[in-house]
């Protein structure tokens, strides 16, 4: 079944079953491997993308449910204001270790920052709870989100 999806501003026509999780369409069909597989059950957040700006687990999102919506992945998040700030804060704070979870972390964090420029600790917990980091970078993730929020604030 041929479907058209919009990823990072581009239309892609894909020929897969409609119930195929978006994750595999991105990774295996379109070759966009920045979005990661961790659990396949919405338990770890590694596969997080934005659908119309909302952080979404692509491993449990059937590709035919996306419709006309805009999909944004880690490969293009730097083009958004919140995404660029988060990436910079991630580098400034040296958040990354193995890095495998970080695409998902950055996608969740940038969705948070875009919708809530001054998140509290509990806002951060709520938005980031679903993203596991086996390397244990949580302390730095929290600091980096706060730093990104500060820089957002300074620019008014």
């Amino acid at each position: 079944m041929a479907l058209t999806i919009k990823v990072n501003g581009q239309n892609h026509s894909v020929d897969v079953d409609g119930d195929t999780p978006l994750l595999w369409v991105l990774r295996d069909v379109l070759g966009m491997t920045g979005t990661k597989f961790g659990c396949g059950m919405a338990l770890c957040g590694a596969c997080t993308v934005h659908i119309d700006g909302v952080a979404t687990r692509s491993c449990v999102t059937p590709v035919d449910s996306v419709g006309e919506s805009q999909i944004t992945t880690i490969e293009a998040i730097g083009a958004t204001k919140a995404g660029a700030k988060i990436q910079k804060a991630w580098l400034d704070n040296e958040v990354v270790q193995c890095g495998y979870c970080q695409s998902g972390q950055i996608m969740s964090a940038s969705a948070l920052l875009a919708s809530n420029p001054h998140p509290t600790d509990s806002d951060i917990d709520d938005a980031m709870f679903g993203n596991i980091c086996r390397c244990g970078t949580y302390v730095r993730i929290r600091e980096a989100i706060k730093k990104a929020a500060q820089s957002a604030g300074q620019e008014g």
Partner: protein
Amino acid sequence: MILGHLTPRPGQSDPNTLSRRGFLQAGAAAGGGLMLSLSWPFADGEADAAAAGAFAPNAFIRIEGDGQIVLTMPYVEMGQGDYTAIPMLIAEELEVGLDQVRLEHAPPNEKLYGNPLIAGVQATGGSTAIPAAWEPMRRAGATARAMLMSAAASRWNVDPESCRANGGEVLHAPTGRRLKYGELAADAASMPVPASVVLKRSEAFNLIGTPAKRLDSPVKVNGSAVYGIDARPPGVKIATLAQSPVFGGRVKNVDDTAAKAVNGVRQIVRLDDAVAVVADHMGAAKKGLAALTIEWDQGPHAQLTTDEIARGLEKATLNPGPVAQNIGNVEKAMANAATRVEAIYQVPFLAHATMEPMNCTVDVRQDSCEVWVGSQVLARAQAAAAKVTGLPLEKVVVHNHLIGGGFGRRLEVDGVARAVEIAKHVEGPVKVVWTREEDIQHDMYRPYFFDRMSAGLDEKGMPVAWSHRFAGSSILARFLPRAFKHGLDPDTTDGAIDLAYALPNMRVEYLRVEPPGIPTAFWRSVGPSHNVFVTESFIDELAAAAKQDAVAYRRALLDKSPRAKAVLELAAEKAGWGQPLPERAGRGVSVQFVFGTNMAQVAEVEVSKDGAVRVRRVVCAVDCGVVVNPDIVRAQVEGAVIFGITAALYGEITLKDGRVEQANFDTYQMLRISEAPAIEVHIVQSSEPPGGMGEPGTSAIVPAVANAIFAATGKRLRKMPVDASALKQPA
């Protein structure tokens, strides 16, 4: 910097071009540059030579005609920062900036890239990378610098002593002349290798000791980093698999009619003990797998339970075992002791649950095989592929990748062998990706251990006798059989023997008991992951029996270990040890000397009325000798602490009917950001040789948490993970 997969260069991996004696050798690089190789042939007598610690690991520095400095990395990057800290060592001596160094993954070649601290196995593990690399990598950099300087001096016809190296150039100050390394590389290649070089003194370090930025971060924040699971050779198909749910079982019957009808499924591969579905994408492969009906012949372990395994270990500890350490006379001291304390400890099987699930991409052709994988043991990966295909080693090309979490899981090559078995039946390349369920249920686990402790105390409550007897799997006996001698191996007992404490009479016995059918493997902090929990909990019990403060009691036993004592004091001070806490909150301490690093941790926990434990704050003091990159040291402690708390609070793999009961992150839980404590790391300045930092944070936190729970509730937890029901406040 290139962090993708790279094909090994011809000539680079040819051991015959290298000195049989080891040490440094220089030559011309392809394209007219300088190539310096540090080599050690491990082919004969390697274990003994390695034990003597007398030689270098292997590295290549290539300085190309355009001045590019290329370092072939013998250690892999799995988050621990080797791809930053090791180039720092070379850049420091070469007098170049870190940004002037480009990295390549080393190809498989045990002779060239064997790790001297792991008996010459080409392995990254055991927190050995920096300790192993510290001296030889700097020596390699200094030698290259000296040869570049001689090349410049002879070109200018001046005394080399009047030249200086800086920023990738050689300068002649008196005349103001300068030449870039690239312009000198070809000449330098024909200079004699200096017999000795002077390494920089620590006061002169520009890079070592600074929080230099990680080289692998930029590609990891924009999705461009390439892990094994991201390999996409042209035409690659995706496969996923089901292995016998009972270890040692076999496939009896497969009905694949429905699976074959799934859109995108190409092929079903039936192996002896597994079935794989090959498809255009993982979505189809998973759907195909779900549509299979597989009947298993469960084999001999179909009734196995964790309890049965624990009972077997318990029984084994009723008899004496091979003695790993014996000091003084324990029987006599025990008989004369004023008080005796006895306890039994147990730790569970644990899965690694690396964030990147197991995967391996393989293309088996008529007369060759190509493998794309992220591995901690590249040469073993190559050997595994050669064995399964029957091809000679040199016909197997292995491309290493960034690793999405190792923790010991990728020291094993079962996943490589499995992928090659599948690929043998598939035309063209196939990427075998394990589902998370398969990853957790077919891991190779941190062993279950059963420990009997007893101690005798004198009238003042100080230990005069210490006896520790335990049973469990020896990973090293399988992983490196020659390291298993007289029933003992140095890993299983690490953290149980050679304690930092002065114990006048002490005996440690180890009984190797392999659990039937359950594969075991190294897991972050290896032997100490079990032993430090036991010893540091038990010493806490002794302090409590003696009615003494847990820090003061330890301190009194640390006179012969000043560095351990210093970190203990520092951690206690920074944590506010002794200051009052609310009800059902408490602090616990641990101190250890393992992986060549002294570390103390104080954990602060609170226990809710219903028994839920929350770790609020962790203070860690560490003396790991010279610090190459303090920010990476900090990050490793933070990560290792989270890893250990996850194990302490949730980590347990159990078996029922021979099957692992946990399957995904709902049943094998990970600590989440909302549960993460504040973590403070205090680094002691030191000029001792560097110790390992990837693992000690994990072994230290587990007893600190257990001891804090005791302080908060009076309940001593002798079995991990924490049993919240035992901590409920009585109504």
